[in-house]
C-alpha cells in the first residue's frame, strides 16, 4: 500500500533537516502505529506525504500502490486515496462544514471519473455517519471547525475520513484532546473502516488509543528516523519505560 524509502526532508526556508532517511512499508489492510518523542518528525512525515508546502525532499521516495506520491498535487494524493487526519485541524470561517464535505467528496469522485453523489444520498450518508460519531446536525451547519472544541475537531476529522473512504489513512495524534468516550467513538469509527483495501498509520503518544485500535506493527521514530520496529508489545514498553531505553539501545 504505502512504501517509503530513505526519505530525507529539510525545511524549504532554512537549512534544517527534519527527516533523515525514513524507511517504512505499510501493507494492505494493516494498521501501523508510530510513536516517538516530541519533535522527532512524525507530523512532518505526515505533511510531506500529503503534500504540504514548505518542505523539500532531498532524497528518497514515497509511493502509494506504486504511484509516486511526491510528484502529485495535494488534491491528487487525496483522490489517489491518501487521507491525513490533522494533529491541528484548521478552522475555515465562512465555509460551511456540509458544503466543504460535499465539495470534497464530489471533487474526489470527479477526479476518479466516478459520478457525483446526489444531494439526497450525500445528506443521508453524512447524517448516518455523523450520528455514529455523535456529531450533531448543528455542528454540520457551522463553518468548518470554527468554534469546535478540541475533541469535536478530531471527531470531525474522522467524519471526513468516513465520508471520503480513503485507502491510506494517516491519523496524527487524533487521540489527543479526546475524552475517554470520544476516544472509543473514534476507535470504533476507525475499526469499522478496517479491512482489505484500507491501511492505517496511527501517530500517537499513548498506549490508550492502541488498546482500542490494535496495531499490527509499531514503529518508534526518533530524530527523523524509524529507529525500532516491533509488535504491539513495543507500545507497552514505551508506556511503562518511556523512550530512554529504546533510544539508548539504538543509538
Amino acid at each position, binding site marked *: 500500500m504505502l512504501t517509503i524509502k530513505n526519505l530525507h526532508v529539510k525545511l524549504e526556508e532554512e537549512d534544517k533537516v527534519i527527516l533523515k532517511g525514513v524507511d517504512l512499508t505499510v501493507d494492505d489492510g494493516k494498521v501501523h502505529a508510530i510513536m516517538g518523542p516530541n519533535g522527532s518528525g512524525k507530523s512532518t512525515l505526515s505533511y510531506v506525504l*500529503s*503534500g*504540504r*508546502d514548505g518542505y523539500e525532499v532531498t532524497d528518497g521516495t514515497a509511493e502509494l500502490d506504486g504511484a509516486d506520491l511526491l510528484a502529485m*498535487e*495535494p*488534491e491528487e*494524493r*487525496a*483522490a489517489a486515496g491518501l*487521507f*491525513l487526519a*490533522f494533529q491541528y*485541524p*484548521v*478552522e*475555515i*470561517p*465562512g*465555509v460551511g462544514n456540509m*458544503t*466543504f464535505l460535499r*465539495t*470534497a*467528496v464530489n*471533487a*474526489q469522485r470527479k*477526479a476518479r471519473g466516478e459520478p457525483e453523489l446526489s444531494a439526497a444520498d450525500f445528506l443521508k450518508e453524512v447524517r448516518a455517519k455523523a450520528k455514529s460519531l455523535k456529531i450533531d446536525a448543528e455542528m454540520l451547519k457551522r*463553518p*468548518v471547525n470554527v468554534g469546535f472544541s478540541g475533541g469535536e475537531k478530531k471527531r470531525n476529522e474522522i467524519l*471526513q475520513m468516513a465520508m*471520503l473512504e480513503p485507502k491510506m489513512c494517516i491519523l496524527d495524534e487524533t487521540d489527543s484532546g479526546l475524552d475517554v468516550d470520544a476516544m472509543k467513538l473514534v476507535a470504533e469509527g476507525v475499526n469499522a473502516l478496517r479491512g482489505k483495501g484500507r491501511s492505517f498509520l496511527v501517530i500517537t503518544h499513548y498506549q490508550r488509543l492502541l488498546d482500542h485500535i490494535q496495531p499490527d506493527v509499531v514503529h518508534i521514530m526518533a530524530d527523523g528516523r524509524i529507529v525500532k520496529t516491533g509488535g504491539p508489545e513495543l507500545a507497552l514498553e514505551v508506556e511503562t519505560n518511556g523512550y530512554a531505553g529504546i533510544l539508548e539501545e539504538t543509538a
Partner: protein
Amino acid sequence: MGVPQAKLDATQARLAALSLPKGANWAAVARQDALSRVQAMGLPGRRDEYWKYTNPATLVQPDAPPAAVLETREPPIFAEIDRLKIVFVDGVFDAAASDDLDRSGLEIELLTDATSTDIHWARDLYGVLEARGQSPVHRPLAALNSAFANQGVVIRVTGAAACPVSLVYLRRSENSDAVIHHVIRVEEGADLTLLEDGPASARFNQVIEVDVADGGSFHHVRAQGRDHERRAATHIFARLGRESTFKSFTLSVNGALTRNEAVIELTGDNAVAHVAGAAVGDGDFHHDDTVFVTHDAVACESRQVFKKVLRNGATGVFQGKILVKADAQKTDGYQISQSLLLDEDAQFLAKPELEIYADDVACSHGSTSGAIDEDALFYLRSRGVPQAQAQDLLVLAFLAEAIDEIEDPSIAADILSRLDGWLKRHHH
C-alpha cells in the same frame, strides 16, 4: 475660500461641454442652484483630501474616455426575478425595451416628465438631499449631476411594492457619457426593492436620492457592469425617518474606475441603515467605496460592510465615516472594510473614521488586508478539492459577510452566480 485657478479651469472646461436641460420653473431653479454649487466648489482635483486615493481626472475631463463594449454571453442578471424592468441604453430611457410603467401600481415617471410638470412631489427632493450631502464634505460630481441630468426615474411608493423595480443599464456606444438621476420617496410604512445592473455607459455619473419616511423600508441591490474599461461615479443620498430601514448592497466586477459614494442621514429614532459592497478586480481595476453615515437621532443602527478581492495590479479604496451627533444617544455603529489580496501587486487603501459627540454609543470599526490563508487552502486541497476550487471557496467565504447583507435569497443567489462567473473566468 477661493477655488484654485487650475480647478476653476478644469471645472469651466467640463461645464462648457454641457447645457442645462429645459423644464418647469422649480426644476430650472433646482438645476441652477446645483450649477452654482458646482461653481462654488469646483470639480474634484487630485489635490483634494477626499480624492487622495482615487484620481478624479477621467471623471472630470470634458469628454468620456472611450471604453470598449464587452461582448458577453453571460445571461442577464435578475432575469428570473419577477420585476418591473426599466431599461436605459447608453444612459437614455428605452421605452420599447422597458415594461409598462403605468402597470406597476407604483407612481413611476421619467425624470424628464416629472421635471416638466409645474407641481410635482419630486420638487421637495430633487437636488435637495444631494445639497444636504454637500456638508461637511463636498461632492461636486453629484451637484454636477443634479444640474445637468435629464434622464432617470422618480418613484413614489405608498404601500408594499408588488415586485422590485429593476433598472437595467445597457451600453452600445464606446463613447457614451451618461448622467442619470433618480428620486425615490418611500412613504410611511411603504416598502420598495430597487435592483440595478449593467455597465450604463463608457462614463457614468449617477445620483440616487432616497427619502424613506417613518416605518418605510428600502432595499437596494446593484450589480455594476463588468465592462473592463467603463468608469463610474455614483452617489446615493439617503434620509431615513423613524423606525425606517435602508439596505444597500453593491457587487462590482471589474471596471477601470468606480467610485461609489453613499451618504446616509439617520434623522428619525430607531432607524436602521446597512451599506455593503463586494468588489472583485483583476488588473486595471480601481474601486473606491466612500461612505458617510450621520447619526442624528436616538437608538439608530448603522452597518458598513465592504470586502474587496484584488489581484494583478487592482486597487481597492475604502473611505468610511460614522458621524454621531451629540443628540444621537444609543447609537449602534459598525464598520468593517477588508481586502483579500490574491498577489503582491494588488493594493488596498483604507481610511476608516469615527467622529462621536454623544457619550452613550457603541461604535466599532476595523480594516484589514490579507492574503489567502495557506493553511486553509492546504486543508481543503488535502481533502481533494482542486486548488482553484479551494481558492474560490475561500474567496466566497471572505465575501460572505457582505453578501449576507442581501435579504432576499433569490437575489443573493443571482449575485453569487455573478461572482462564480468572475471566479471561473479569472483562474490563473
